[in-house]
């Protein structure tokens, strides 16, 4: 017994050593999601972006939590030509890379040309390529891309002046330049370490190259306030860069740890071993985080989420070999291919979706409805557009009117698929099922959980009559959402099998001007028309939140930053 006691005391002693608060000049963030790559070309996920945005710099950046106000980082000022095709930036002088190399225009030219050349299929370079080359493909898939096009797209006028030449107007070009893949890398250092040498002679060999095999994958030399200490494949350490051109940050050391298990993250926060942790849902915040000593839950009415989701109603679903989704392909035992081509059916679905119930069930009340598939904080969002509320009578009326009463008389059986594990999509399906089946005993709505990969395949093959989709922005411009959701050639729009010349024209017009007021009016017009035609139903967003220790000062939330705030802006 005494031996056991001794052992226990000994264990307590070791344990005591393991318990230590985070130092005042150190920021520890414990989260889920591994960094994918640190090469700017390949950064297209928030885990990678959250590191890269503090170590590399782009020409421009956002001011604090604003997504419309821009400030110069490596550029000091800029001019746009009257035709909107030429952008000229004056660059900051006296800036040093982490390697000690000086920053000049050659680095800008190299960095932008490098991503346009490499452009691997998993990356987000497609939207930079659309702006600068006029195509979203890389040079392997689009034969029309020549070295001259890439070379001409970005030119140095002198050591500290760079000019971008666009093939067509792109109102989103400035904000695209803020995206992490437009980070400026140390060209001399990259070339010396075996990256692309920046010349015409070798560019072909680098097209489509996966950055995960390269030197920049886990090594960084940028101009940012922090330099990478190391990334071991999971955890990341960074420290303040003494040679930084701007103000020295208060936080000198940063440690990012990946911990998959939420309970373990919560305990680390509670014990002060973490300054910030990732928490999955409001449910966990309210039941396990709220009220912990020394812990703050940050939330604000002004924080708008940027993830937008919609219930897509496919107007010409394939009925061949698709029994799983459309049954027999006819009334009663299934649905016909053109089920959603009647606007009454689409309206009936919209009236059957109880948005308040959805917010209560899924977000425990912490959410907001949307008038259109665009975040409220974005240019062009129009709060005056009406929203379809839950209205069983209106739904019944619309169903009765559809297909001259044939639908109401014969009934239908529809299967709504969602990817297993996605509780948002599952909840929507369950709400629709309950409310629609309630209207008529001949209405059958089945929910079906399938694997993510099957979901993607079925959607690509036009097999889903209804697909519930979500979109997170690449860059802070309404076109990134509106074109995607509503245009007949947009990524989601083309899956609707819905073609409205008016909407397409408005979206094209909004793309062809840089005047914000004019663009906003086009988007508002699209939203009003989309209310009448209901091609898709935007579902409510979850209100954002953040969980940190209370002594962390200066926390803000910029939805366009992968880490919501920059490390240089916080202190303890």
């Amino acid at each position, binding site marked *: 017994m005494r031996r056991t006691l001794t052992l226990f005391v000994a264990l307590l002693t070791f*344990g005591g050593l393991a318990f230590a608060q985070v130092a005042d000049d150190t920021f520890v963030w414990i989260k889920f999601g591994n960094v994918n790559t640190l090469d700017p070309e390949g950064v297209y996920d928030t885990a990678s972006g959250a590191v890269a945005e503090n170590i590399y710099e782009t020409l421009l950046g956002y001011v604090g939590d604003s997504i419309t106000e821009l400030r110069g980082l490596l550029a000091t000022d800029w001019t746009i030509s009257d035709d909107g095709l030429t952008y000229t930036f004056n660059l900051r002088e006296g800036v040093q890379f982490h390697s000690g190399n000086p920053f000049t225009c050659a680095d800008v030219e190299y960095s932008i040309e490098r991503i346009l050349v490499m452009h691997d299929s*998993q990356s987000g370079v497609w939207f930079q390529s659309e702006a600068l080359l006029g195509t979203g493909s890389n040079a392997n898939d689009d034969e029309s891309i020549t070295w001259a096009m890439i070379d001409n797209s970005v030119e140095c006028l002198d050591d500290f002046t760079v000019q971008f030449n666009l093939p067509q107007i792109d109102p989103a070009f400035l904000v695209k330049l803020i995206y992490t893949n437009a980070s400026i890398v140390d060209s001399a250092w990259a070339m010396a370490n075996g990256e692309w040498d920046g010349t015409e002679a070798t560019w072909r060999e680098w097209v489509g190259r996966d950055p995960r095999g390269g030197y920049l994958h886990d090594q960084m030399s940028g101009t940012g306030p922090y330099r990478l200490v190391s990334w071991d494949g999971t955890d990341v*350490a960074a420290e303040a860069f003494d040679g930084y051109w701007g103000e020295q940050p208060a936080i000198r050391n940063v440690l990012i740890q990946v911990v998959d298990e939420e309970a*373990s993250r919560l305990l*680390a926060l509670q014990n002060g*071993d973490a300054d910030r942790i990732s928490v999955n849902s409001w449910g966990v915040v309210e039941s396990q985080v709220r009220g912990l000593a020394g812990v703050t839950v940050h939330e604000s009415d002004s924080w708008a989420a940027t993830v937008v989701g919609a219930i897509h109603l496919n107007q010409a679903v394939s009925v061949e070999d698709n029994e799983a989704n459309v049954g027999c392909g006819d009334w009663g035992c299934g649905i016909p291919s053109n089920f959603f081509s009647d606007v009454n059916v689409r309206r009936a679905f919209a009236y059957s979706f109880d948005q308040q119930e959805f917010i209560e069930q899924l977000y425990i009340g912490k959410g907001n409805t949307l008038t259109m598939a665009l975040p409220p904080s974005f240019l062009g969002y129009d709060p005056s557009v009406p929203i379809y509320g839950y209205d069983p009578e209106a739904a019944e009326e619309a169903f009765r009117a559809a297909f001259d009463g044939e639908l109401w008389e014969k009934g239908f059986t529809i299967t709504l698929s969602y990817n297993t594990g996605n509780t948002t999509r599952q909840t929507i399906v369950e709400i629709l099922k309950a409310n629609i089946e309630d209207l008529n005993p001949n209405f059958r709505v089945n929910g079906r959980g399938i694997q993510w990969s099957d979901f993607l395949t079925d959607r690509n093959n036009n097999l889903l009559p209804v697909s519930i989709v979500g979109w997170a922005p690449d860059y802070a411009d309404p076109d990134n959402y509106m074109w995607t959701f509503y245009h007949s050639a947009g990524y989601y729009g083309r899956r609707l099998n819905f073609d409205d010349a008016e909407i397409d024209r408005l979206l094209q017009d909004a793309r062809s001007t840089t005047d914000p007021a004019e663009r906003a009016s086009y988007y508002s017009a699209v939203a009003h028309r989309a209310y009448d035609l209901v091609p898709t139903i935007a579902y409510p967003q979850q209100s954002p939140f953040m969980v940190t220790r209370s002594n962390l000062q200066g926390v803000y939330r910029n939805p366009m930053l992968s880490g919501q705030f920059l490390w240089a802006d916080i202190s303890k």
Partner: protein
Amino acid sequence: MLTFILRRLFMLPIVLFAVSFIIFALLQLLPPTQRAASFITSEQQAMNIEAIAEEFGFYEPFYIQYGIWLREVFRGNLGYSRTSAQTVLETIAERFPASAELAIFSMIPILLFGIWLGTAAALNRDKFIDQFSRVMAIVGWSLPTFVFGIWILVIFYGGFGLFGIGRVSNTFLTEILRGDIHTPTGSMLIDAVINLRFDLFWDAIAHMVLPAITLVVVVSAQIMRVMRGSLLDALSQDYVRTARAKGLPQRVVHLKHARRNALIPVITLSGLTVTGLLNGSVVVETIFNYRGLGLWFARAATQLDTPAVTGFALLTGVLIVLANLVVDTLYAVADPRIRYD
């Protein structure tokens, strides 16, 4: 004996070939776009699903895909693991020592506790210690590892602020990432000694306490029950009666004559258990964020990280062949009647 060992080792390449072949064959059951879907985390990337499948050669015939992989393996390249963002070999080199360290650290108490309690239970059949061990076994067996793990984490780390998660504390982790502490072996304890950092040594031990307790409670139950059953069986054998009749002391009869014979099934089981632990315990490593093979494999499997899963399966094949070899050798040690010549 030597020929026996060599013969066994010759089997190794065949096992590895079969394992990798089966995995590749199974993967062919998935359509190329489905395999490419595992690379996709956002809707934006889903736009390029065909191009991704093309880029990774998923449209090539089976024998070409397998041939390319095999050629790379002979060059010492097992591929790149997305889940660890390193090559598979680097990941194994880094994580195997971690899992091995935890395996050894917990295997000693697991074996001592299991064999001791099993012996005590068998010798005191239906007495208190036997009933106690039975309850312990039921609890250990039926309690899911993640439940017990989270309990003790909440009690010790959450309640008293003891031990913590990860392999070392944040301050040491920063020093390691900074390169101030060199980690040539990957085993924290050995590396701490090499660096003459005894604070790190204690810290690393403290971080293994909770995972080890979880493993002891959960794993030793089985060893305990097998030990008890096997010993009860041995105690009723003729040679035990003979030994008693010779007037040998009780202790010698039990421990030398009966237990030694009863150890054979325990050795078999321990071999499997050690292999399992060396492979990393998925649940324990996930809960305590102990960065070993188990944590890696769990992520790799859910994300269809093919090179990682294949590399992990090959490693498991090697470990099982070796563990069986060690077990068979140990039979001969425990029971002199067993000979392989």
